[in-house]
């Protein structure tokens, strides 16, 4: 039986170019066959998600930085909540930040849109776990 490989599409929203580069490279090296979308602030991501032209290429997971210009992570989650129901698929949102500010951490915990708050520097295995756990196709276990 031929199994069609279903890739997980991850989306990273961060204004830090080096982090994005590293994130993509890491996915590539680890062979987690995920497609990566990236945006340098919340506004760009919302524009993309709302655009019907991209409706077939929506991410499964969003990693969003907190501190960004134009539209920060908090405002992104508010905007995302408004359009979530129109997405036609479940999208998990993770906050990813270097901030150890307890206010930020609590705010993320109390935000129903955010699945978890991931502190930078990121744990590579944890990211891999998240991406893998989203891969629910039958062929998943055969993948390496």
């Amino acid at each position: 039986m031929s199994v069609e490989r279903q890739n997980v599409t991850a989306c990273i929203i961060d204004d830090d170019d080096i982090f994005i580069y590293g994130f993509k490279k890491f996915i590539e090296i680890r062979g987690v066959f995920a497609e990566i979308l990236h945006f340098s602030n919340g506004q760009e991501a919302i524009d993309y998600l709302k655009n019907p032209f991209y409706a077939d290429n929506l991410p499964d997971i969003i990693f969003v930085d907190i501190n960004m210009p134009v539209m920060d992570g908090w405002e992104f989650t508010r905007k995302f909540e408004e359009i979530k129901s129109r997405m036609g698929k479940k999208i998990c949102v993770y906050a990813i930040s270097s901030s150890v500010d307890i206010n930020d951490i609590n705010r993320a915990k109390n935000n129903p849109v955010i699945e978890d708050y991931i502190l930078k520097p990121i744990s590579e295995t944890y990211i891999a776990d998240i991406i893998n756990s989203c891969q629910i196709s039958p062929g998943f276990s055969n993948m390496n």
Partner: protein
Amino acid sequence: MSFFEGHNFFGESTAHLARLINNINTGIWEYNTTTKKAKWSDGFYAILGYQPGEIECSYHNFFENILYYHDKQTFLKATHYAGTGPVPIAQIRLLTKKHGYQWFESSALKHDDDDGQFIYGVLNNINKYKLAEFTAAKTDFLSAETGRMARIGGWEIDVASMSLNLSREIYNIYELYGDIKLTLDEARSFFEPAYRPMLTKAIEDAIKYCKPYDLEVLFKTAKNNIIWVRVKGIPIIDDFGKCITIRGVFQDIDVIKRNGISMQSSINLLDDQNKRLQNFAYIVSHNLRSHAGNLKFMVNLFEETKAENDKEEIFSHIKTISESLSATMGHLDEIVKIQSEISKERKSVSFETIFNNVIATLRANIKASNAQINANFSEVPEISYIPAYLESIFQNLLTNAIKYKHPDREPVINCYTKTDEKHIYLVFEDNGMGIDMKRFGDQLFGMYRTFHQNKDAKGIGLFITRNQVEALGGNIAVDSTVNIGTKFTVRLV
């Protein structure tokens, strides 16, 4: 037989009158100034504590031994009263048998007769009342002194007539001296206008709902001194539960209140500083962590990557991180410097000179953006300030105005000083892209907060500016409209 028959004693027998005179609890005496003979009633002896006849009945004995020497003048004056009108009453001290000197009331009447010139007199013991009076006077004095020291007085409003009664000390607090009586409206007009409605409502509520009140309000005395006072009122109710009187105290609490206010502002200042320090700690941690995190990330990738051109790219990122780390350390140094420079001496500096220095260093930027900068420091040409701070404030605000110019027009920047007697302000107005105050207003001065998609934005300038201004006790206000421009008003001192 009634005493009152014929409304006088003319019909009485002598024996009856004598019985009357001797039995009442009052001393009655008679003195014949011609024969120098004195007569004392039984009551006279009795009120002094003696049996009739126990002591010598003579004017001499009375005047020299019984009457307190200090009261002789008083007694003589009242006894030999020559004027018309009611007989004066003297209050004198007499020596009693067992209780020492006691207070008596004496009245006397002269009467000329065929047998000579007589003086009749009556003595009553008033010791109890007199002592009560002294105690009351002492209490009054004490309470007046207490009121004076505590700067507190009592007042009453009679609800039926809405008339007001204020104690002496309240008039002292009003700085109204002399014979003045204020009406309720007049008394209220001394309160600062902003507090009058509050006071009116408190009085209304006390009358209507029997609600007590306790207010701290600003008050202007008759000599135009503005002070804090405390007004406390308690409704007094009748048997039917209706408020008939409001009774209360009025106290000058100016010193306490002003201490409290300055204490509160110190607390707020400390609180702000604390918050800033904590914020600063978070920021430092955030920035170092993000660089450190990236560095670790890149080093791991570098080790795992096999492709040579990937390695090159990763290494270039490592170089960038290293530069960013140095830059961050530089920012930290600058911020630490703000605190260390605060102790440096303030100097009288000319706004014009500082402005020209900054313009010179920014010449390239100004030229490239074609900015028009209008400066006018005529209202306040000089200020006592730390020169390095002022230069940094100019530099950051000018750089910002140029950096965030509107894409469709050349920047016009107005920069001027102004004063309102108490403070000196430095104002920067630009016609740049503006900033959405609703979205970003609270983060504007945060470290590494950037709002526009601008590659030069580092989010450090305004953070440093605010810290410098606040370190010297000033503040910064911002007003901005997207696509119109931004106005920074810096209160320097």
